């Protein structure tokens, strides 16, 4: 009752979610906050840990690839130097790590919380989304480091950074769709999380992350870039952060369509299997 009167007294904004949706959104926010908090609960550095993790990764790559192996890579927008390969690698790893960490954890999101599934009535659809959002938020810290470094080295912040949400769209939709799929299957098949680890490992080398896409033999190149939405996402990240210009519109559009299909399919399967979750867990 209180909420309603408050709502009336407020000026109506141009866009307003219906109240159930607002509640769901704020619950998702709380769930993600809890997830992030719980991860570093009791540690002294707390939420600095994801930042330190990302930073240490970047330092290791710089040491191994730029100082020890001295891999060179020419990037149009960057001053020619030894660090560019490690930045390029890091830019590719950011979406990949967010994707895999979110996916692997969402596979377990239902089976590790049977209480929430069986004893509490609440929108169960939110559960697999929680680890995906958490992983994404952690990757944003790495992204911030990357953007700052690139800006520092090139003495310029490229305007293409505003387009980053375009890369996030297929990334999040794909993660959520696959997350729904693996979370619901894991309820019935506990082998899913283990097999996911294997699949993700194979997938990693099928995606041009540690090697540039143009070194793939030409007949294969096309297939990899178009059929692997992750390849398109990784390329989009690099385009926007390092190149400063979107060079893979086609691949991006196709990946987004694929991601939407995966999302709808995953959600459909999840909703179909949902009534049985409580019976099995």
């Amino acid at each position: 009752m209180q909420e309603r009167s408050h709502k009336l007294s407020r000026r109506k904004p141009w866009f307003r979610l219906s109240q159930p949706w607002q509640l769901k959104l704020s619950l998702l926010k709380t769930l993600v906050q809890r997830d992030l908090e719980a991860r570093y609960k009791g540690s002294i550095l707390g939420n600095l840990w994801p930042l330190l993790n990302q930073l240490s990764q970047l330092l290791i790559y710089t040491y191994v690839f730029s100082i020890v192996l001295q891999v060179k890579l020419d990037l149009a927008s960057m001053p020619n130097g030894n660090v560019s390969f490690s930045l390029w690698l890091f830019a590719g790893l950011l979406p990949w790590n967010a994707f895999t960490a979110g996916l692997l954890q969402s596979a377990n999101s239902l089976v590790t919380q049977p209480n929430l599934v069986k004893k509490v009535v609440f929108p169960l659809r939110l559960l697999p989304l929680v680890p995906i959002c958490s992983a994404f938020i952690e990757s944003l810290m790495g992204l911030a480091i990357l953007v700052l470094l690139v800006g520092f080295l090139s003495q310029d912040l490229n305007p293409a950074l505003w387009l980053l949400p375009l890369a996030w769209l297929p990334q999040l939709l794909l993660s959520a769709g696959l997350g729904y799929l693996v979370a619901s299957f894991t309820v019935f098949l506990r082998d899913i999380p283990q097999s996911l680890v294997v699949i993700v490992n194979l997938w990693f080398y099928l995606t041009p992350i540690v090697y540039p896409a143009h070194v793939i033999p030409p007949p294969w190149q096309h297939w990899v870039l178009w059929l692997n939405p992750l390849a398109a996402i990784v390329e989009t990240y690099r385009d926007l952060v390092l190149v400063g210009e979107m060079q893979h519109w086609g691949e991006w559009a196709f990946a987004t369509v694929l991601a939407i299909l995966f999302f709808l399919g995953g959600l459909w399967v999840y909703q179909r299997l949902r009534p049985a979750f409580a019976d099995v867990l």
Partner: protein
Amino acid sequence: MITSETQSLAWQSESAPQPSDAPAIVVQNVAKCFKQYQHPSDRLKELLLPNTSKAQLFWALQDISLEIPRGQTLGIVGRNGSGKSTLLQIIVGTLTPTRGQVQVNGRVSALLELGSGFNPEFTGRQNVFFNGQLMGLSRRAITAKFDEIAAFADIGHFIDQPVKTYSSGMFVRLAFAVATSVDPDILIVDEALSVGDEAFQRKCFARIHAIRERGGTILFVSHAAPTIISLCDRAILLDRGEMLLSGTPKTIVAKYQRLIYAPPSQVNAVRKEIYQAKLAEAEKVPAATSPPGKRRSHDSDRDSSQDNSNGKGQGSVDSELASLESYDPNLIPSTTIAYITKGAKIHNPKITTLDGKVVNHLIARRSYIYTYTVEFLQPAQRIQFGMLVKTISGFELGGSAFPIAPELADEMTTGSRVMVQFRFQCLLQPGVYFLNAGVSGIIDGESLTHLARYIDVAMFRVYAADDGYGTGIVDLLIDPTCTIAPASAEDQP
């Protein structure tokens, strides 16, 4: 399939107002089948490709139909595994019925398991907010209620400590406080209140009463017969997934207790009997359901039964009480121990009415005779006979040990038999009680010793003679009155 509907209920604070005469809960032909698979993946196959079932079926609920009017408090009793929790989970919406429909009108708060949404790493405060949000409250609404919740839980500064540091009592307090803080239209309580200390239980019941007074509908599962009788307007008896009977709490609880004390070999017979009673009942004109808000403690039969304190008779015995006073062959202790048999044996311990009818269902405040026969196996002197009444937990309530009547021979010879009778008034609150029997005396010229001592030779159940304002174990024949007190300056707080 209604689940999405039920699910969203807690999640729709703007749900369309229901007509006020619509029942709070309607359950129609609900059945729940759990499928048991050799391998969990078979279930996945079946869900995605129907008609390829490899499952063994287990029907946890069969054809349950139930209509709970707004404002009614319904008790659900049944043995373990009878489907009580499954039914509640289906009504709440965490389980989906295999068949049938459930319609729930109003905001539901379920205490299926206290604190299931709690995370032990977080503080009480954080968990209150999280649980409130799980139940569909906005953060603002929870903030407004927080002080009330904290006051009810009454755990002091622990509210800002991680929940893992709580004692189980504190945990329960907080969980209950949160669950009932949402002002539910329908409260569902699943045996959750058996935890927590007495004082807190009373507080919980006070809150449940408050929800009831406000016109809330309550579903209540408990094994505690007095709670069901005192709290509920109606009760149902579930057994093996079937609804055996629905009726007044008193009759349901009586049938239920017959069922639980039946030895395994007779369970089926008892079930059949209850079932037939139900069919017979159905042939009669269906009794009008008592309107919501009517409280059992004001039933009209209270006055007629109250004057029966002096045993049977007086012609005012109402038929319900008369039928309660009976012998249940299944109500026999499984814990009988012949503690000592050294020179005497005790035969045939039983309770009879003053007319000599053998009973083990007793009506409070009436008089009965506890009797047994002693057979002496060798000569004995200075004989004393004893009895003792105990609670289920073994607490000794009262007894007697009296010397053999002087007109009988002081010395018993081998093979002589004595019938002992203890007349007593059943000044006990409703419940189950156990009896001991014993004989002591001197044999072989030794000192006074037990000749025979039997623990739990008989048990009996006591029913309230009225609608029972009494509490505790012993009925002190309290006669409460109250009048308006004149104002007085001497009043001390």
